[in-house]
């Protein structure tokens, strides 16, 4: 990377979930600290700066190249339609009238380092637990029209299964089979580790998946619209009560994979590759 190179991390963001953009902003701050790029910025579909604002974030006199890395779990509607359209990209490489070059990179979830990160997270959430006596469940949304996250989760589960470390490795979904709510039937081991395959924590990881698993829901949760107070679980209490004892099993529930600081490394790698 040169001193005239900038990084733009693009994410979805949210008008209702205060935690949606937090991991992306944290990864940007970490990468900025490493001084690899002259500038590091974020842009969001649903928050500010918008994807349209991003067109003006980098002064063409000081920044000659912009690497655009989508902070998405998989290819899909956003990476293939929305981001190129809003950023006026014509493919992998776009040259602006100012001469500034924009390079469109692969989404973060596509990188091969994702497998290691999932393994690391599984180890951290269940320290001292023998993987050979443990099932690892990677949860994606499923039936999501906008992302192929189900396919990505399946691919990661296959790669981890091939390593032969865990007793079982399964890709499971919230809304299509194999269902996360069937985890008791799908697994046989005493220990079960569940890692949500999402970019950020939000209603799915704080409330929906715990409910589907059977972790008692914390009181006072407000599913809310814009302006509502954040859910009682907003600070990740559900991730600190591990292991959850359910039906004589020990279930270890991890925060969304996208909140892992290791994402910063993958974002940089996607820009380089």
């Amino acid at each position: 990377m040169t001193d005239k190179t900038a990084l733009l991390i693009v994410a979805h963001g949210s008008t209702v979930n205060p935690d949606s953009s937090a991991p992306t902003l944290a990864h940007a701050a970490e990468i900025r600290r490493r001084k690899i790029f002259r500038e590091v910025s974020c842009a969001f579909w649903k928050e500010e700066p918008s994807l349209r604002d991003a067109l003006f974030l980098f002064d063409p006199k000081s920044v000659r190249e912009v690497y655009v890395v989508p902070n998405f779990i998989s290819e899909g509607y956003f990476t293939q339609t929305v981001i190129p359209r809003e950023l006026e990209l014509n493919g992998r490489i776009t040259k602006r009238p100012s001469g500034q070059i924009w390079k469109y990179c692969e989404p973060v979830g596509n990188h091969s380092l994702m497998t290691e990160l999932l393994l690391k997270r599984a180890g951290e959430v269940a320290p001292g637990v023998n993987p050979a006596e443990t099932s690892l469940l990677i949860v994606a949304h499923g039936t999501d029209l906008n992302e192929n996250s189900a396919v990505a989760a399946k691919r990661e589960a296959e790669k981890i299964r091939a390593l032969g470390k865990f007793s079982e490795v399964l890709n499971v979904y919230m809304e299509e089979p194999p269902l996360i709510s069937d985890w008791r039937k799908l697994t046989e081991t005493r220990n079960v580790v569940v890692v949500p395959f999402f970019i950020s924590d939000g209603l799915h990881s704080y409330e929906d998946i715990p409910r589907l698993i059977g972790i008692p829901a914390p009181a006072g949760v407000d599913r809310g619209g814009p302006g509502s107070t954040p859910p009682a679980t907003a600070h990740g209490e559900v991730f600190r009560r591990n292991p959850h004892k359910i039906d004589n099993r020990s279930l270890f529930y991890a925060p969304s994979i996208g909140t892992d600081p290791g994402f910063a490394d993958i974002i940089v790698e996607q820009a380089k590759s």
Partner: protein
Amino acid sequence: MQNPVERVLEAVPFCFGEVLVRKSGKSLLLCHRDEDAQDDLEMFQNPEDAIEIAKYDDAGNYRPLKTAPNLRHGWRMKLQSSAELKHALGHFYPGRLAVFFAWQRGELRTTSLRETLDRQSGMYRIAATISDAQIDDLVAGFCHSNGGCLRTILWKRDQHGTIASTKLPIQKFDPTLDQVQALGRTGSATGTTVPLLCQESCNLLVAACRKVVKGE
């Protein structure tokens, strides 16, 4: 040669939306413009703290639009460099400083609301069927500086250059004016204002157009 941030800093003190920036010795002090006279404010020194300050309003509600006139009170931030200031302001009003600099350089392009709506796909495609009269009313309420948004609107309603809404005061389109003062709100008034510019309608307005069309 000075960079654009330093050039803006020459004008310290200045207001950027509801944030007041002034110098104190070698440091830069930021606070809510209503509260410069307060001495019991919670102190912050890290520009990254601006993310959390800007996230919720005084009542603890999430702020999906950072340029809405509801920045919370009760804080002061002490920074040591123009680089730190640039970061903090980038968190209080994400993207607005860069858009202002592009405007100063004569490089800012504006996009009419009709073009933005016509470009949408998926669930937002239907928003393009909104009528001119509906836009006139919606924008007047949605973007109004008094309760809606503090940005100065630079975009037009359509490619013929029609004003965004005939029902907004003319000050809403003038980047030389301070939108907070235009409201007649009291509080710290400084000579210089760096405007929060709106070169293209935001996603929230597009979503609001869709709601109007769907009668929600």
